[in-house]
């Protein structure tokens, strides 16, 4: 059995945001239902997958977790190409990680496809007593910038599945409506897991996983 035949859509999603906000733990919670109080730092880019159901279709999410440190930006931004979704994560207990969201958005504008679906994720919602970023402030920011928004906790698992489910559904809606609009040229049935579906038909993702 090959991976090429067991799903209807393959979406490449990147996890970005400052170091230490919990990107790797969101990924391990979503793909393996695991949380590590002390996990190793991410070096460059690491990667995992999970399939979910949307409207009766099997969607395989190919998720690239990136290192938050500035030094790795050259390597990590190369992975934005071909991504149809981005989870931009900050830590609700660290104001600075929220302040940096603007920089991360610029980063995406510079390196990712223009139609990429972005979701703002305020992680560590379990740290209620340490909250430094009010939910309302983040909601407003998300509205202004036309991002969807959710607060999660990789630790107690709240909203983690929901975050991924929401962004994958949003992507699916866009992709499937395009298929109807445009004779399906931009969205081919996957033949190999190496070519994620691109939203923008003018920039088909070749060598999608890098």
């Amino acid at each position, binding site marked *: 059995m*090959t*991976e*090429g*035949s067991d799903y209807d859509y393959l979406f490449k999603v990147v996890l970005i945001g400052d*170091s*230490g906000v919990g990107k790797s733990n969101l990924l391990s919670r979503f793909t393996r239902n695991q949380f*590590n*109080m*002390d*996990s*190793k*730092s*991410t*070096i*460059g*880019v*690491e*990667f*995992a*997958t999970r399939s979910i159901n949307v409207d009766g279709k099997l969607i395989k999410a*190919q998720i690239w977790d990136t*290192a938050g*440190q*500035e*030094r*790795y930006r*050259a*390597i990590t931004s*190369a992975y934005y190409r071909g991504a149809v979704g981005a989870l931009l994560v900050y830590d609700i207990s660290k104001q600075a990680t929220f302040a940096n969201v603007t920089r991360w958005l610029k980063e995406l504008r510079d390196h990712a496809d223009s139609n990429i679906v972005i979701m703002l994720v305020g992680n560590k919602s379990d740290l209620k007593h340490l909250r430094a970023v009010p939910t309302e402030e983040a909601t407003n920011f998300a509205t202004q910038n036309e991002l969807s928004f959710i607060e999660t906790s990789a630790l107690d698992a709240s909203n983690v599945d929901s975050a991924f489910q929401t962004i994958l559904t949003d992507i699916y809606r866009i992709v499937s409506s395009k298929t109807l609009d445009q004779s399906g040229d931009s969205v081919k049935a996957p*033949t*190999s*897991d*190496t*070519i994620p579906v691109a939203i923008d038909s003018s920039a088909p993702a070749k*060598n*999608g*996983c*890098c």
Partner: protein
Amino acid sequence: MVIGDFELEIEPVVAAKARLPQGTMKSDAEEVVNDPFFRLLRSSHAPNPNLSSTLPENKTNVIARSGDTEKFLRETSIRHNRRLKFIDCLSKEDVDIAELRKLAWAGTPDDLRPIVWPVLLGYIPLPSNLRVPTLARKREEYLSLVQLAFARDRQSLDQQVWHQIEIDVPRTRPGVQLWMQETTQRSLERILYVWAIRHPASGYVQGINDLVTPFFQVFLSAYIDSDPELFDTSLLPQPILNAIEADCFWCLSRLLDGIQDNYISAQPGIHRSVKRMAELISRIDAPLYNHLESQNVEFMQFAFRWMNCLLMREISVQNTIRMWDTYLAEGADAFSQFHLYVCSAFLVKWSTKLRQMDFQAMGIIMFLQSPPTQDWGDHEIELLLSEAFVLCSIWHNAQSHLNAR
């Protein structure tokens, strides 16, 4: 009366400490900290320990029963002879570095590593009369670097560097007792911060924290009688902790001198190494190379980390320590040059398995992200090193020739 009570109280505490499961100090630790060769020179004048003393009692029984005694004794005697050669080499007034390199290439005995590594790195000088004063001076120098760096409050630290170090120190070898302790973590923090501000072109880069751990464990082992990974570092007398920390700092500095390009802006050293590795694989294992290409798997997707952390995320620290015996014996540029051949040999090791994975770019990358090396011991590492050596001797000149054109 008061004094008497005081003494009564202190005695049992010391005695209890010596028996604690967190570990015990070696009795000559105080001497060894000043002169790391103290133990070696002391014992080399004494009669050679006989063979049977190196056999743990239970092991003797098992072996006698299994009938492998002869093989075991032969191996023990080979090991014993190698040890003697090391001791011979290290006991000279002026250590013959070429000879030491030759010996260390094939692996260094655990108890000699704390002196062999610093000698190979050029941190401990070769002439015996220079060792004690040089070490004293370097450790003093490190202490003053620390004092300078942390002279004022936390706000005056380089915030960006400090912030990243603060996040990464608790994420260094998570779950291992030694590294989860306050004392060890503060030590690691100082080493990384002082190194970072002295090397502004790179600063602290994630993954450098991993590279400190083999040094720390090896140097710590010189002073204690138990497993370094379980040792409670708060039991260390301050001068010994200071010495370990300073020695780690200087040895890390020397190691990183050879791979600075891996950590400066845009990380050109890593890009160069990964590119050369891909070229090499295309020549030594074309079917694998073609397979990866047809699956759209790029070398950068897995080999970046192999270069950035010197394979420390893929193999155990014990494996790494054995590997560094050879790297340090190879010389200063082994961590960039020889390492490339090690990574190539490492990839080719999984060739059959990888070539069977069709339409599985993700599967291939995930496999290479966490290859099954959990039960690797010295034997597997030594095999890898010898395969790398063969590759290096065949291709190294050819590659430099190609690059020159």
